[in-house]
Protein backbone atom coordinates (compact mmCIF):
# COMPACT_ATOMS: atom_id res chain seq x y z
CA UNK A 1 0.00 0.00 0.00
CA UNK A 2 2.80 2.37 0.93
CA UNK A 3 4.57 1.48 -2.31
CA UNK A 4 1.40 1.97 -4.34
CA UNK A 5 1.08 5.51 -2.99
CA UNK A 6 4.77 6.10 -3.73
CA UNK A 7 4.33 5.11 -7.39
CA UNK A 8 1.23 7.28 -7.75
CA UNK A 9 3.06 10.26 -6.19
CA UNK A 10 6.05 9.70 -8.50
CA UNK A 11 3.64 9.77 -11.43
CA UNK A 12 1.99 12.96 -10.22
CA UNK A 13 5.40 14.65 -9.82
CA UNK A 14 6.47 13.51 -13.30
CA UNK A 15 3.16 14.67 -14.72
CA UNK A 16 3.46 18.12 -13.17
CA UNK A 17 6.92 18.48 -14.73
CA UNK A 18 5.55 17.30 -18.05
CA UNK A 19 2.54 19.61 -18.02
CA UNK A 20 4.51 22.64 -16.81
CA UNK A 21 7.38 22.38 -19.27
CA UNK A 22 5.94 20.55 -22.27
CA UNK A 23 8.30 17.60 -21.94
CA UNK A 24 7.91 13.84 -21.77
CA UNK A 25 8.46 13.40 -18.04
CA UNK A 26 11.12 10.68 -18.08
CA UNK A 27 13.78 13.15 -17.00
CA UNK A 28 11.77 13.64 -13.77
CA UNK A 29 10.60 10.04 -13.28
CA UNK A 30 13.93 8.24 -13.58
CA UNK A 31 15.70 10.14 -10.77
CA UNK A 32 12.61 9.69 -8.52
CA UNK A 33 12.59 5.93 -9.12
CA UNK A 34 16.30 5.75 -8.42
CA UNK A 35 16.54 8.09 -5.43
CA UNK A 36 13.25 7.59 -3.57
CA UNK A 37 12.01 4.15 -4.58
CA UNK A 38 15.40 2.38 -4.63
CA UNK A 39 15.13 1.06 -8.22
CA UNK A 40 18.39 0.28 -9.99
CA UNK A 41 19.12 2.46 -13.02
CA UNK A 42 17.98 0.08 -15.75
CA UNK A 43 14.79 -0.82 -13.94
CA UNK A 44 14.14 2.88 -13.34
CA UNK A 45 14.53 3.65 -17.05
CA UNK A 46 12.50 0.64 -18.19
CA UNK A 47 9.67 1.41 -15.78
CA UNK A 48 9.68 5.08 -16.73
CA UNK A 49 9.16 3.95 -20.35
CA UNK A 50 6.04 1.99 -19.31
CA UNK A 51 4.59 5.17 -17.82
CA UNK A 52 5.38 7.06 -21.05
CA UNK A 53 3.60 4.68 -23.45
CA UNK A 54 -0.01 5.71 -22.77
CA UNK A 55 -0.84 9.27 -23.89
CA UNK A 56 -0.47 10.55 -20.32
CA UNK A 57 -0.03 14.13 -21.52
CA UNK A 58 -3.57 14.17 -22.91
CA UNK A 59 -5.11 16.30 -20.15
CA UNK A 60 -2.14 18.68 -20.32
CA UNK A 61 -2.56 19.04 -24.10
CA UNK A 62 -6.24 19.81 -23.58
CA UNK A 63 -5.37 22.46 -20.98
CA UNK A 64 -2.98 24.15 -23.46
CA UNK A 65 -5.36 23.69 -26.39
CA UNK A 66 -8.20 25.42 -24.56
CA UNK A 67 -5.97 28.49 -24.23
CA UNK A 68 -5.01 28.28 -27.93
CA UNK A 69 -1.42 27.22 -27.22
CA UNK A 70 -1.24 24.15 -29.48
CA UNK A 71 -0.09 24.56 -33.11
CA UNK A 72 -1.62 21.36 -34.48
CA UNK A 73 -0.19 21.58 -38.01
CA UNK A 74 3.38 22.28 -36.85
CA UNK A 75 3.07 19.42 -34.36
CA UNK A 76 1.78 16.97 -36.96
CA UNK A 77 4.68 17.83 -39.28
CA UNK A 78 7.21 17.29 -36.44
CA UNK A 79 6.08 13.73 -35.68
CA UNK A 80 7.43 11.87 -38.79
CA UNK A 81 10.76 13.71 -38.51
CA UNK A 82 11.12 12.73 -34.86
CA UNK A 83 10.31 9.11 -35.59
CA UNK A 84 12.80 8.81 -38.49
CA UNK A 85 15.42 10.84 -36.63
CA UNK A 86 15.09 8.52 -33.65
CA UNK A 87 15.98 5.52 -35.79
CA UNK A 88 18.90 7.38 -37.37
CA UNK A 89 20.16 8.50 -33.97
CA UNK A 90 20.02 4.99 -32.55
CA UNK A 91 22.08 3.73 -35.52
CA UNK A 92 24.68 6.49 -35.17
CA UNK A 93 24.90 5.84 -31.41
CA UNK A 94 26.21 2.34 -32.08
CA UNK A 95 29.24 3.74 -33.90
CA UNK A 96 30.37 6.58 -31.66
CA UNK A 97 31.35 7.02 -28.05
CA UNK A 98 28.10 8.05 -26.32
CA UNK A 99 29.64 9.41 -23.12
CA UNK A 100 31.43 12.27 -24.83
CA UNK A 101 28.26 13.07 -26.81
CA UNK A 102 26.23 13.26 -23.61
CA UNK A 103 28.76 15.60 -22.03
CA UNK A 104 28.79 17.91 -25.05
CA UNK A 105 25.01 17.91 -25.13
CA UNK A 106 24.76 18.52 -21.36
CA UNK A 107 26.95 21.63 -21.72
CA UNK A 108 24.87 22.88 -24.66
CA UNK A 109 21.64 22.28 -22.73
CA UNK A 110 22.99 24.12 -19.70
CA UNK A 111 24.03 27.11 -21.84
CA UNK A 112 20.64 27.09 -23.58
CA UNK A 113 18.90 27.15 -20.19
CA UNK A 114 21.13 29.97 -18.95
CA UNK A 115 20.54 31.89 -22.17
CA UNK A 116 16.77 31.60 -21.71
CA UNK A 117 16.95 32.88 -18.13
CA UNK A 118 19.33 35.74 -18.97
CA UNK A 119 17.32 36.62 -22.10
CA UNK A 120 14.22 37.38 -20.02
CA UNK A 121 16.04 40.08 -18.01
CA UNK A 122 15.89 42.40 -21.00
CA UNK A 123 12.09 42.37 -21.01
Amino acid sequence: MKKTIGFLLAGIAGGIGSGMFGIGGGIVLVPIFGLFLAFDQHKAQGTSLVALIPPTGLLAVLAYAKAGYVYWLTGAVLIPGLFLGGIAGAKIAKRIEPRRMRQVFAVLLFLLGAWQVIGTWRH
Partner: protein
Amino acid sequence: MTPIVLIIVLVIGLCAGTLVGLLGIGGGVVLVPAMVHLLHMDQHAAQGTSLFVLLPPIGLGAFLEYRKKGNVDLHAGILCAVGMLLGGYIGGKIAVPMPTVRLTQLFGVFLMFSAVLLWAKASKPASTLGQASAPKGES
Protein backbone atom coordinates in the same frame (compact mmCIF):
# COMPACT_ATOMS: atom_id res chain seq x y z
CA MET B 1 2.57 27.14 -43.67
CA THR B 2 5.01 28.25 -46.39
CA PRO B 3 7.29 25.62 -48.02
CA ILE B 4 10.35 27.10 -46.28
CA VAL B 5 8.73 26.86 -42.84
CA LEU B 6 7.55 23.34 -43.67
CA ILE B 7 11.13 22.30 -44.46
CA ILE B 8 12.44 23.94 -41.26
CA VAL B 9 9.82 22.08 -39.18
CA LEU B 10 10.69 18.75 -40.83
CA VAL B 11 14.39 19.34 -40.20
CA ILE B 12 13.74 20.25 -36.53
CA GLY B 13 11.80 17.00 -36.11
CA LEU B 14 14.58 15.02 -37.74
CA CYS B 15 17.34 16.66 -35.65
CA ALA B 16 15.41 16.34 -32.37
CA GLY B 17 14.62 12.71 -33.19
CA THR B 18 18.28 11.98 -33.90
CA LEU B 19 19.25 13.38 -30.50
CA VAL B 20 16.54 11.26 -28.85
CA GLY B 21 17.91 8.08 -30.42
CA LEU B 22 21.50 9.12 -29.85
CA LEU B 23 21.33 10.20 -26.21
CA GLY B 24 18.22 8.48 -24.88
CA ILE B 25 16.73 11.77 -23.75
CA GLY B 26 13.15 12.95 -24.08
CA GLY B 27 12.36 14.97 -27.18
CA GLY B 28 10.70 17.82 -25.29
CA VAL B 29 13.88 19.38 -23.89
CA VAL B 30 15.12 19.80 -27.49
CA LEU B 31 11.79 20.51 -29.21
CA VAL B 32 10.67 23.36 -26.96
CA PRO B 33 13.82 25.55 -27.36
CA ALA B 34 13.95 24.73 -31.10
CA MET B 35 10.37 25.93 -31.59
CA VAL B 36 10.97 29.05 -29.50
CA HIS B 37 14.21 30.11 -31.19
CA LEU B 38 13.84 28.78 -34.75
CA LEU B 39 10.10 29.08 -35.32
CA HIS B 40 9.68 32.13 -33.05
CA MET B 41 6.78 30.55 -31.20
CA ASP B 42 6.12 31.84 -27.68
CA GLN B 43 6.98 29.64 -24.71
CA HIS B 44 3.40 28.52 -24.06
CA ALA B 45 2.72 27.57 -27.68
CA ALA B 46 6.03 25.67 -27.91
CA GLN B 47 5.22 23.69 -24.77
CA GLY B 48 1.64 22.92 -25.81
CA THR B 49 2.76 21.81 -29.27
CA SER B 50 5.57 19.70 -27.79
CA LEU B 51 3.07 17.93 -25.50
CA PHE B 52 0.92 17.16 -28.54
CA VAL B 53 3.92 15.76 -30.45
CA LEU B 54 4.81 13.53 -27.49
CA LEU B 55 1.35 11.90 -27.25
CA PRO B 56 2.11 8.94 -29.58
CA PRO B 57 4.05 6.08 -27.88
CA ILE B 58 7.50 7.04 -29.22
CA GLY B 59 9.23 4.97 -26.52
CA LEU B 60 7.47 1.69 -27.37
CA GLY B 61 10.47 0.15 -29.13
CA ALA B 62 12.81 1.12 -26.31
CA PHE B 63 10.36 -0.33 -23.75
CA LEU B 64 10.38 -3.70 -25.55
CA GLU B 65 14.20 -3.75 -25.43
CA TYR B 66 14.17 -3.15 -21.66
CA ARG B 67 11.48 -5.78 -21.12
CA LYS B 68 13.61 -8.43 -22.86
CA LYS B 69 16.15 -7.93 -20.09
CA GLY B 70 13.51 -7.95 -17.34
CA ASN B 71 14.25 -4.35 -16.39
CA VAL B 72 10.58 -3.34 -16.16
CA ASP B 73 8.24 -3.11 -13.19
CA LEU B 74 4.87 -3.10 -14.97
CA HIS B 75 2.83 -2.59 -11.80
CA ALA B 76 4.86 0.48 -10.82
CA GLY B 77 4.80 1.79 -14.39
CA ILE B 78 1.03 1.57 -14.72
CA LEU B 79 0.42 3.25 -11.36
CA CYS B 80 2.87 5.92 -12.40
CA ALA B 81 1.02 6.48 -15.69
CA VAL B 82 -2.20 7.09 -13.74
CA GLY B 83 -0.38 9.65 -11.60
CA MET B 84 1.13 11.29 -14.69
CA LEU B 85 -2.24 11.78 -16.33
CA LEU B 86 -3.37 13.64 -13.22
CA GLY B 87 -0.06 15.49 -12.73
CA GLY B 88 -0.01 16.56 -16.39
CA TYR B 89 -3.38 18.21 -15.88
CA ILE B 90 -2.13 20.01 -12.76
CA GLY B 91 1.09 21.10 -14.51
CA GLY B 92 -0.88 22.42 -17.47
CA LYS B 93 -3.20 24.33 -15.15
CA ILE B 94 -0.17 25.93 -13.43
CA ALA B 95 1.69 26.82 -16.64
CA VAL B 96 -1.12 28.12 -18.85
CA PRO B 97 -2.08 31.22 -16.80
CA MET B 98 1.59 31.99 -15.94
CA PRO B 99 3.15 35.09 -17.61
CA THR B 100 5.27 34.01 -20.60
CA VAL B 101 8.43 35.64 -19.20
CA ARG B 102 8.12 33.78 -15.89
CA LEU B 103 7.48 30.48 -17.70
CA THR B 104 10.52 31.07 -19.94
CA GLN B 105 12.70 31.66 -16.86
CA LEU B 106 11.41 28.52 -15.14
CA PHE B 107 11.98 26.50 -18.30
CA GLY B 108 15.55 27.81 -18.46
CA VAL B 109 16.21 26.73 -14.89
CA PHE B 110 14.66 23.35 -15.67
CA LEU B 111 16.98 22.95 -18.70
CA MET B 112 20.03 23.65 -16.52
CA PHE B 113 18.81 21.08 -13.99
CA SER B 114 18.32 18.54 -16.80
CA ALA B 115 21.83 19.28 -18.06
CA VAL B 116 23.26 18.46 -14.64
CA LEU B 117 21.37 15.13 -14.60
CA LEU B 118 22.61 14.34 -18.09
CA TRP B 119 26.20 15.17 -17.13
CA ALA B 120 25.94 12.90 -14.08
CA LYS B 121 24.90 10.08 -16.39
CA ALA B 122 27.78 10.81 -18.75
CA SER B 123 30.41 10.90 -16.05
CA LYS B 124 29.83 7.28 -15.04
CA PRO B 125 31.55 4.59 -17.12
CA ALA B 126 29.52 3.44 -20.13
CA SER B 127 27.97 0.01 -19.74
CA THR B 128 25.65 -2.17 -21.78
CA LEU B 129 21.98 -2.81 -21.06
CA GLY B 130 21.41 -5.25 -18.21
CA GLN B 131 24.64 -4.73 -16.27
CA ALA B 132 24.55 -3.82 -12.62
CA SER B 133 26.70 -0.68 -12.89
CA ALA B 134 24.28 1.25 -15.05
CA PRO B 135 24.94 4.80 -16.24
CA LYS B 136 22.71 7.34 -14.52
CA GLY B 137 20.01 9.21 -16.39
CA GLU B 138 16.53 9.34 -17.81
CA SER B 139 14.78 7.40 -20.52
